């Protein structure tokens, strides 16, 4: 083979997937099995001891899922990846590998509402504590660092507000204090933004969204950037101390620049258990093959719809980073030059009630809690996804009473505009 580096679109189709070694099947088969037979006792021992590569049990590895993992690792430019049951499972496993009871991490307030709940509420029962950065500047993140800080967490393109984060700036803070930067790249996908190239150490995604792309399967992924030196100090004992479960093996020493992915798999996934189904992995793999085409069309359609809304007299404001003059437009051009993605928010005049009326009136847009489907989706976060938050938290997360979030699909833009036009007329 030539030494050309394959382009993104080629990787989206080929990375990780060779014809099936046993049958020659060209499409990755769905290995719908819980377990795999061992060649012999020695082979079993090698697998359990992490000395050989291979499959034991689908909670830990599966050949269909492995293709998905390698594909995402290649698209994000990481050293390795592991796929899990959902985006939230990915976040849980990452923190499980980094945090000890009593530890802290810093997160942006511009996050998916579910992540705000997971970090602010559920993680408390593990004695893991989030500190929220006051704004999106690197200085606001630095201001929250204490001796207990083990990670910084941001979304590259934040859900729902269309905020584009200064990944490089925040990565510099993380590097200076030797703390890994975790970036949730769900909304941008690696087609629009590759956070590892901007200094992220770990990328997580909900594959349920644009990667799968068809709203038919739950999945999540953790990508190891291979950039963080775990052994520099003793702050990440899961990676640097001997593991009793594996004959006192030290993961950072044995697995080098993909030790983080291995730790999440052989400790987190093995012991906490949120494995992805091979069938879902297959569906998501098929989806990823068209990711470049879909993300182009999503971004084009979203731009047209945003333009339309900007000119509508019942719309108070539109927050889409792709629009000239938007406060995040410069950051978008820097970090996501190929498009600003599908999801954005706008404010409908008349507040809470108008928001509820609008989502009730649409006919092509589906009123539901998801993003990243081929279909166009609409939601009023204040009455749904962000309902659990108090008013200040809602406002901080970009989910105030008048806010509508769209995930613009890949239908004809004219039909989407016509649907919003009729729905707005009747509020």
């Amino acid at each position, binding site marked *: *083979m030539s030494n050309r580096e394959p382009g993104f679109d080629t990787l989206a189709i080929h990375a990780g997937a*060779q014809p099936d070694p046993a049958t020659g099947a060209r499409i990755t088969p769905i290995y719908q099995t819980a377990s795999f*037979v061992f060649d012999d006792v020695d*082979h079993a021992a090698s697998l359990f001891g992490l000395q050989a*590569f291979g499959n034991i049990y689908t909670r830990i590895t599966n050949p269909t899922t492995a293709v998905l993992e390698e594909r995402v690792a290649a698209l994000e430019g990481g050293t390795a*990846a592991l796929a899990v049951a959902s985006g939230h499972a990915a976040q849980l496993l990452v923190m499980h590998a980094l945090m000890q009871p009593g530890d802290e991490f810093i997160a942006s307030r511009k996050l998916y509402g579910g992540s705000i709940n997971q970090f602010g509420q559920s993680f408390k029962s593990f004695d893991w504590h989030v500190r929220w950065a006051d704004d999106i500047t690197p200085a606001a993140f630095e201001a929250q660092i204490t001796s207990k800080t083990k990670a910084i967490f941001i979304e590259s393109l934040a859900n729902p507000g269309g905020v584009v984060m200064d990944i490089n700036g925040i990565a510099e803070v993380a590097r200076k204090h030797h703390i890994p930067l975790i970036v949730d790249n769900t909304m941008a996908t690696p087609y629009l933004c590759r956070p590892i190239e901007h200094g992220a150490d770990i990328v997580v995604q909900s594959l349920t969204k644009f990667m799968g792309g068809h709203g038919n399967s739950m999945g999540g992924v953790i990508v190891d950037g291979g950039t963080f030196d775990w052994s520099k100090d003793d702050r990440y004992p899961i990676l640097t101390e001997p593991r009793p479960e594996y004959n006192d093996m*030290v993961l950072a020493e044995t697995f*080098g620049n993909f030790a983080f*992915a291995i730790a999440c*798999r052989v400790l987190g996934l093995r012991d906490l258990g949120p494995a992805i189904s091979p069938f879902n992995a297959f569906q998501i793999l098929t989806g990823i093959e068209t990711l470049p085409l879909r993300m182009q069309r999503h971004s084009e359609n979203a731009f047209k719809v945003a333009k339309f809304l900007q000119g509508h007299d019942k719309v108070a404001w539109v927050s889409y980073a792709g629009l000239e003059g938007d406060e995040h437009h410069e950051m978008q051009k820097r970090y996501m030059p190929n498009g600003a993605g599908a999801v954005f928010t706008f404010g409908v005049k008349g507040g809470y009630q108008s928001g509820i009326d609008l989502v009730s009136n649409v006919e092509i847009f589906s009123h539901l809690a998801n993003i990243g489907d081929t279909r166009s989706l609409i939601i009023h976060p204040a009455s749904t996804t962000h309902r659990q938050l108090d008013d200040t938290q809602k406002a901080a997360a970009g989910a105030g009473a008048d806010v509508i979030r769209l995930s613009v699909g890949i239908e004809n833009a004219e039909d989407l505009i016509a649907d919003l036009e009729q729905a707005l007329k009747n509020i």
Partner: protein
Amino acid sequence: MQEHDFYPDQHVRSILSSVKSIAIIGASANEVRPSFFVAKYLVAKGYRIFPINPGRAGTEIAGAMTYASLADLPEPVDMVDVFRHADALPSIVMEIMAMPKLPSVVWAQLGIRDDAVAASLEMAGIEVIQNRCPKIEYARLSGEIGWAGFNRRTISSRKPKLQRGFQHYLLSE
């Protein structure tokens, strides 16, 4: 002279397919040390290995007889794999140059690199690979490491080659 920042996949593949016997300097008998993993893996892939470890001479590591030094080897080897710190390389080069038949390849493990040492070996006609692991390279090029979600940084429309059993791939040319 060979460039040492980047080795084309085809180059590494041809080295791993042509060598049959490998001396491993610094092979450990401790089953959780990386050097033991590598020794065991190379045996499973059909290579004849010769662990070199003075403290273990006369005992077996990964099923192979261990020798105190290269000078004690009972026969020539195709490759010498070095699991020692870079500062040990100059003296290892002297040992290699004193071998009755020179190996065709000297391989320095991940993290070990000294271009001056490499140049002196290359002058003697020896192929040098540095800062790589033969286990990772074999598993990457055969496809096995994909099972661990590893980014192999290579794509192919060819079928992987199955070895005996179910979960073993061989390198294909």
